[in-house]
């Protein structure tokens, strides 16, 4: 129960960060990706700001044997760079560049009620479900 409440609060902080940084706005994201146009460096500062607080968190986590709320750490331990990883990241990059939406901001923007956010999120969910049709995608 504590863990579920904590997840809710962490999600709220994460979503609030996407709001404050304006990363919920696809045009702002595309402004960063458009180096040849009127370049807007904001997204780079968002990533840097996120790393400033995330790096110490992960460093502290590494020193612990278990999370503060109990259970165990679920951190991926693979280090091989394989074809699915790079192909998946490339397909994601293509969709990101076409729309300006990545998963977090798209979900965080659901509350704005903008119709095209629902269009994108529905297609994204369909894309995630379609992955499960692959042999490697089955649980």
């Amino acid at each position, binding site marked *: 129960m504590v863990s579920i409440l904590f997840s809710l609060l962490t999600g709220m902080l994460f979503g609030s960060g996407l709001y404050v940084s304006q990363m919920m706005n696809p045009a702002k994201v595309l402004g960063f990706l*458009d180096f040849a146009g009127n370049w807007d460096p904001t997204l780079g500062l968002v990533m840097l700001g996120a790393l400033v607080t995330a790096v110490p*968190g992960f460093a502290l986590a590494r020193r612990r044997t278990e999370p503060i709320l109990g259970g165990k750490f679920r951190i991926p331990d693979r280090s091989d760079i394989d074809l699915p990883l790079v192909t998946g990241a490339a397909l994601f990059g293509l969709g990101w560049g076409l729309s300006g939406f990545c998963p977090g901001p798209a*979900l965080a923007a659901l509350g704005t009620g903008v119709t095209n956010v629902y269009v994108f999120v529905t297609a994204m969910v369909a894309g*995630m479900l379609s992955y499960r049709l692959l042999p490697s995608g089955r649980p």
Partner: protein
Amino acid sequence: MHEFTPVSGVVGGLMIGTAASLFILFEGRIAGISGILGGALSSLGKEGYWRIAFLLGLVLGPLLIAGAGFSRPEIVIDASVPVLIVAGLLVGFGTRLGNGCTSGHGVCGVARASPRSVAATITFFAVATVTVFATRHVLGG
């Protein structure tokens, strides 16, 4: 176009990184949105309640601070509906195949210096940049 907003960018980034830190320290989990959503879609049982709670928070957080008086960022979507659908399918499928997105790989993975996440982050930033260049400056979108 959009003006550079360095202060709100850094503040928002610090909040996102703090959320990722709290999540790994307290829950032992990676705050990767595509992974959390993808998992929620495949396991709606008791194990998945934390996922639903996190995703609910992601939607509620912006609504609450909007209610607290922070001016809402504009949502400007240039892409047409057919392009948005194709983009959504690519983002959904690609983040599952590649095991992560901007949060899981870009923030959490880079923060813990994971070689896979660094490779994924370079790849999706590079492809997105080329895509924007092609649509805006070659095809003249």
